[in-house]
Each structure stands twice: as C-alpha cells, then as structure tokens.
C-alpha cells in the first residue's frame, strides 16, 4: 500500500465496492479471515519516506512484541532502525539480546543483513531531567531537580510517561541518526491518554492556575480580577490546608525555577503533535481478535482520524487458523461421537463394527464441546489384542477431532469479532498474525513474528491440492 495515508484512504473508499463483492464470495475454506483490505507491512517498512512507526493499542495485545518484530524486520531489510519501548517484559528485552534496556539506544547484535537494529527503553524520569537540563542553566536545573514537587511530577504525573515517550520520540527524530524509529506506546488506562497527556501536561505546566499560584500580585492589581483574586487566595488557602503548606511552597518555588523553560513545554508538545501528523509517520493499531481489544482498536482508529494522524492499518495478533478448516466443528464433533459410542458398545457387548455404519455422519445434534473424560490410557505398545488397539486409536482420533472442533469454534468466534470491526471500519487495512503456541525468547522468535506479519497467512499449510 501507499505509505502516504491520505491517498491510501482515498483508494480505500474507491475500492470499497469491490471489497464488498469480494467478501461476498462463497466460503472456500482457504481463507477464513479474508479482511476487506490487507495491510502489507514490507512496503511500509521499506519506504525511505517512512521515518516513524507508532504502535498503539490496549494492554496485553502484544504491542511491544509487534514493535520489536517490526523493528527487526525493517533492520534485516536494510534500514537503520531504533525501537523505543516503554516497558518491555524482561523476556522481550532478552530476546533482543539486551538484559537491561536503558534510556540510550543500544545496538542489537545478531541481526542479519546490512541494516542495524538499536533498542532502548524509556526512562521517564531521566528524560524529564534531560529536558530540564537542556533548558535551564546548571544552577537552576539543579534547584529544579532537587525540588520535591518536581520529583513527584517527574516520577508519576498521570501523563508523564506518555509525554516523555513523545518527548523522546521528538529527540530521536531530531538527531536524524536513524532511517526509521519504531515506537511502542505506554500501556494506557485508556486510548486517549497517549494523545492527550502531552497536551495536558503542557497546558498544566503552562496554565492559568500555576501562573496564579506564582504571580498573585500581578493579577490582583488589575481591576476586574477581584473575583479571581478572591478565588485564588481561598484556593491557595484550601490547597494549603489540604496538602500542607509545604507542598504549596514547593510548587511555587518549582514554578519560579521552571519559569524560563515553561514556554518550552507547550512548544515541544505542539512540535511532537505535528510530528505525529507528518507524512513520514505511520500509526499501526495493534489488537487481538477479542471483543474488548477490538473495541479499543476501533476507538483508536476513530480518534486518530479525528486528530488527522496517519493510520497505516491494524495489526491483528494471535489469529488462529486451521489446515483442516473445511471440516466444520459440528461434523468433527459428530464424527468423534461416532468413534466413541461404539467403543462403549464394544466393551459392553463385544459387538464390533457398528462404527462403520455410514449414516452416522453429520446426522446427530451438534453437542456441547465438553471435553472427554481423560481416562488414563495404556500405551499402544502394551496392548493385549488388536481390538483394544483399534479402540485406542479411535479414542485418539476422537480426541483429535474434538480438539479440531474447539479450534474451529475459536476460529469462527475470532472471525465474527473481526468482521464486526471491519464492518465498522472497512477503510482500515488489516495484517493478521498467526498465533504462536508459546512466547518469544530470541531474535529468531521475533523474526518469525515478522514473517507472520508480512505473510499475512495462517500458520498451517493448506491441505494438499
């Protein structure tokens, strides 16, 4: 797809009609989850005009892993990449061969090809300190850094992490050292945080209230500001009572010390915001095929559109497939019952061969997917006779069929959830990433995820033919 989002969306609208036709085609079993538009990540990663990829989405959907896998893939396709992660799981940091990621990009060893992969983890306090140090003379900077109010703000203001992630992104981009920056967004309480926090912190630090707190005399002198002044003294009084006078004094000293750098905050927040809207930026919304995650994803998509942020598409992680998807859950369960029933008859009456009855296929009600009793079974090697052996094989086969039925039920649930998203947002290109049975532990694992992302197919080979 085009890396330039506006034309891409135009095209999308133009193509909607044909997609509608496409999705109406008969179910052929080869592609269960055919999205309206397929997101092709390789052209996006390869395009020299793509300078920033932002991965956003709700918690627990594999956002950080996706960011790392995209970074590795871009690097192995020849680009010089830095991945900025917010809070990687230890395993993920280790998978990039880095035991402790810190606020400085580190080269990841063991990548293939000519490109380079660097990784870093955001240290929000350190980043905040750097901003202060960059904007104030050493003496003033030291005073700010030592202020208890600053320490609380930099360590835990509700939006500090988001703000600092964007600040760091701005810094990395300004250095122009990398072809591509892949950034992972903080695990926000809600989708809004990451877009709102920078502005919020900016307006907070820069706002009326803080000015009131620090410069009451100036305002009090003017006519018409009486109410404000009354409100102010009442408020400082109340806040003082509430928080203890010391805190207020800390805030006032802090604000006074920060005075010179204040303008900087708003300006920087605005610059970062513009950077996110720039053509070189691509947003990827990451989700899993689950109701909550996709609801959150839809919310992101709408929000990004409202903010004119360039959305490249949706990465749908952990999508399940089946190499035998022409065998429905119902048929598989019916077949499993076929195999299990005669076995009970066998044991009771010794009548064999009932199971060969051809009419049993698909005729029964579709039963609940209850798991069979896990009776301990002897291994085939120690079987006494052939009939028992057949029974055991049937038992195994029935188990495989029930497993398949569960897979097919999962598959159709995922499809329904995803279709609901696609119906609401047909313009969004989707890349599906086949589910892995385990977690990622090394570069090979990340590479595998990258392949799955680019492949956009399911993990099992299609049945022969």
């Amino acid at each position, binding site marked *: 797809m085009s890396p330039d989002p506006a034309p891409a969306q135009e095209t999308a609208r133009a193509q909607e009609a044909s997609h509608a036709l496409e999705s109406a085609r008969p179910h052929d079993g080869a592609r269960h989850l055919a999205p309206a538009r397929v997101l092709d990540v390789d052209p996006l990663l390869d395009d020299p005009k793509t300078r920033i990829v932002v991965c956003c989405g709700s918690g*627990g959907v594999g956002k950080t892993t996706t960011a790392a896998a995209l970074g590795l893939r871009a690097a192995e396709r020849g680009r010089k990449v830095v991945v900025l992660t917010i809070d990687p799981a*230890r395993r993920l940091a280790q998978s990039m061969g880095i035991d402790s990621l810190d606020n400085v990009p580190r080269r990841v060893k063991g990548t293939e090809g000519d490109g380079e992969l660097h990784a870093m983890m955001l240290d929000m306090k350190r980043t905040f300190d750097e901003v202060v140090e960059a904007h104030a003379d050493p003496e003033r900077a030291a005073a700010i850094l030592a202020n*208890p109010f600053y320490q609380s703000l930099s360590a835990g203001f509700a939006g500090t992490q988001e703000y600092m992630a964007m600040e760091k992104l701005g810094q990395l981009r300004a250095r122009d050292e990398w072809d591509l920056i892949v950034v992972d967004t903080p695990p926000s309480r809600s989708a809004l945080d990451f877009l709102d926090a920078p502005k919020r912190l900016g307006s907070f630090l820069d706002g009326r209230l803080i000015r009131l707190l620090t410069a009451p005399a100036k305002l009090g002198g003017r006519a018409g500001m009486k109410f404000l002044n009354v409100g102010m003294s009442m408020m400082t009084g*109340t806040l003082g009572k509430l928080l203890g006078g010391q805190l207020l004094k800390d805030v006032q000293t802090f604000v006074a010390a920060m005075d010179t750098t204040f303008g900087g905050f708003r300006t920087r927040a605005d610059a970062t915001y513009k950077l996110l809207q720039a053509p070189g930026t691509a947003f990827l919304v990451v989700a899993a095929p689950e109701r909550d995650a996709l609801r959150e994803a839809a919310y992101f998509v709408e929000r990004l559109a409202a903010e004119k942020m360039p959305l490249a598409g949706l990465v749908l992680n952990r999508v399940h497939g089946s190499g035998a998807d022409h065998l429905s859950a119902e048929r598989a369960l019916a077949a499993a019952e076929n195999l299990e029933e005669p076995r009970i008859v066998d044991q009771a009456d010794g009548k064999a061969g009932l199971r060969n009855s*051809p009419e049993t296929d698909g005729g029964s009600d579709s039963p609940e997917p209850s*798991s069979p009793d896990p009776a301990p*079974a002897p291994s085939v090697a120690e079987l006494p006779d052939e009939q028992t052996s057949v029974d055991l094989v049937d038992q195994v086969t029935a188990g495989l069929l029930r497993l398949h039925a569960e897979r097919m039920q999962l598959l159709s649930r995922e499809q329904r959830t995803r279709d609901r998203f696609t119906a609401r947002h047909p313009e969004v290109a989707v890349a599906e990433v086949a589910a892995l049975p385990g*977690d990622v532990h090394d570069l090979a694992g990340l590479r595998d995820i990258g392949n799955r992302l680019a492949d956009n197919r399911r993990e*099992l080979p299609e049945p022969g033919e």
Partner: protein
Amino acid sequence: MSRLQVVSGKGGTGKTTVAAALALALATAGKRTLLVEVEGRQGIAQLFETEALPYEERKIAVAPGGGEVHALAIDPELALLDYLQMFYKLGGAGRALKKLGAIDFATTIAPGLRDVLLTGKACEAVRRKDRSGRFVYDYVVMDAPPTGRITRFLNVNDEVAGLAKIGPIHNQAQAVMRVLKSAETAVHLVTLLEEMPVQETVDGIAELRAARLPVGRVIVNMVRPQSLDAADLELVRTVPRASLARSLSAAGLGGARRGGHAERLVEPLLGQAEEYAERYALEQEQRSVLGELGLPLHELPLLAEGMDLAGLYELATELRKQGVS
C-alpha cells in the same frame, strides 16, 4: 473474610470481569456487595450491559440467591469535591475551585493524592454503617489498576508522605493505610496461564508483600479446556498415521487411502495436536510456578461464546463453587 477485596492483574487478563464475577459471587442470599471502578473506563457498565455509571452508588444486579450488587465509578475530581464538602463545607466555592482548574490540579499533580481519594472512597464504603449499626455493604470489591501499578496505588502513605507531611490529606492517607494493611483487605491477582502475565503476577506479589499489603488469591482466568491429557498426547505420538486415517474414515470422514479425504485430515489434525501439546506443556509449567506462591489458586474457564452477562453469572457460580464466598 476480608471485606475489602481488591482485584488487580496484567492488562488483558480480564481483571474487570473477574472483579465483577467476584462481586456477584460474594452477594449470597441477603448480602450486598459494592463493585468499585477507579480508572474511569466504564468497564463495569459494559459488562453489566447498562449505561455509563455516574459517580453514584446504584444497584446493577441481583445475584442468584437474592444478594445485591451495587456499583460505583469513582471520579477523583468529584471525590475531592465530596471530600472538601465534608471537611470544609465549601458549597458553591467548590465549583469555583473546579472552574479555576484547582481540582484538576489537585488530583493530577500528585498521583498519590489522586490515589488517596480513590482508595479513601472505597475504604469509606467499607466502614459505612446504617442507622442500626449494620454495615451498609458486606463486601466492597475494587476493580483496581493493573499489577504493574497496584503496589504504588495501594501504598498511598509512601506516595503522599513526601508531599503532604501534615494536614488532612496526610491524616486521610494514614486512615486509609490502616484499612489497606489490615486483615480487612485482600488483594487478588488475575493472570493467564502464559509466561508474561505469570511473571508479572509473581513480581507483583513480591512487591505487595514487601509493602506489607495483604495478598489474597491468585485467579487464573480464561483457562482453555483440557481436550487431551498427557496420556492422550503420548498416544497421539505413538499411533501410526495409517491407523488414524482408517479411524477417521470409520467415523464417516471419507477415504483412508492416500489422497482420500480422511487421509488428508491426518496431517493438519496432528499439527494441531502438536501445537496443543506445546501449549499444554507451557501451561503446566506456569501452573507449577503459580503453585509455588503458596496462595489459594483458582481457575476460571475460557467461555466458548465470549464474555457476556450470562457468562459473568457463570463465572460467579464457578467462583462460589471454588469457595471464594
């Protein structure tokens, strides 16, 4: 049993769902529980399929057996206004403060302050009594912030100590801490049988214990059905493919010969079994990691049809069966 039940968990593990199911499970005959939301996500309203909750306690469900679940979405700004009203009788001045941005200021400058307000409100509900001296709520269940932030969130004392050394906020923090660190409180962690959430649970418990916060139960959510056990998997590995093809054919799934329908099913079905075996081994490993924590361990099934209101009742019944109420 602890009357304040705090539910945390890694993002994506379904902690809101588990908190709601727990509130339902605890609302046995004649009992009232209050389900509290602190992150402004309206997750409770979505689960109970009702409109967005206001900052007001209201009944949202009747539990099987006649108990009642009430819900409250705490808004920190409104909680602060409440609080000011209670202590300073501010009246209209409170609104003026809000207009000036003072409330926003006070609730956002220091997450510690915000958290004191949120936990303070929950503790107030725990201690509240009616005229006859009976507790208004038998249990308060809190859908708390995720594992990564839970210790900081509950350990308000430490958070506020550096900022407010004296004054009502300081006193409030002290009072809240007395409830949170007592046996009146239990912090439950929700996890999945996957490496990352389990690791985060283990780390979270260590942090909670270090802060002397009372850890309650570990609840494993979305446990997938055990379709094949270890013995079955062993058989899968030993049975010849041709036998499987014959068996599939006997079940009515087509020809067993090479290229026949049944024969072509063997490979993909075995592939799925192999994936299942890998996951099964990983899950067993995670189970044993969780087992070593020495805490009551509960498992809730993955609901085949996804989460809805009926599913919520199903999970509540399951929790009751496992003896949480």
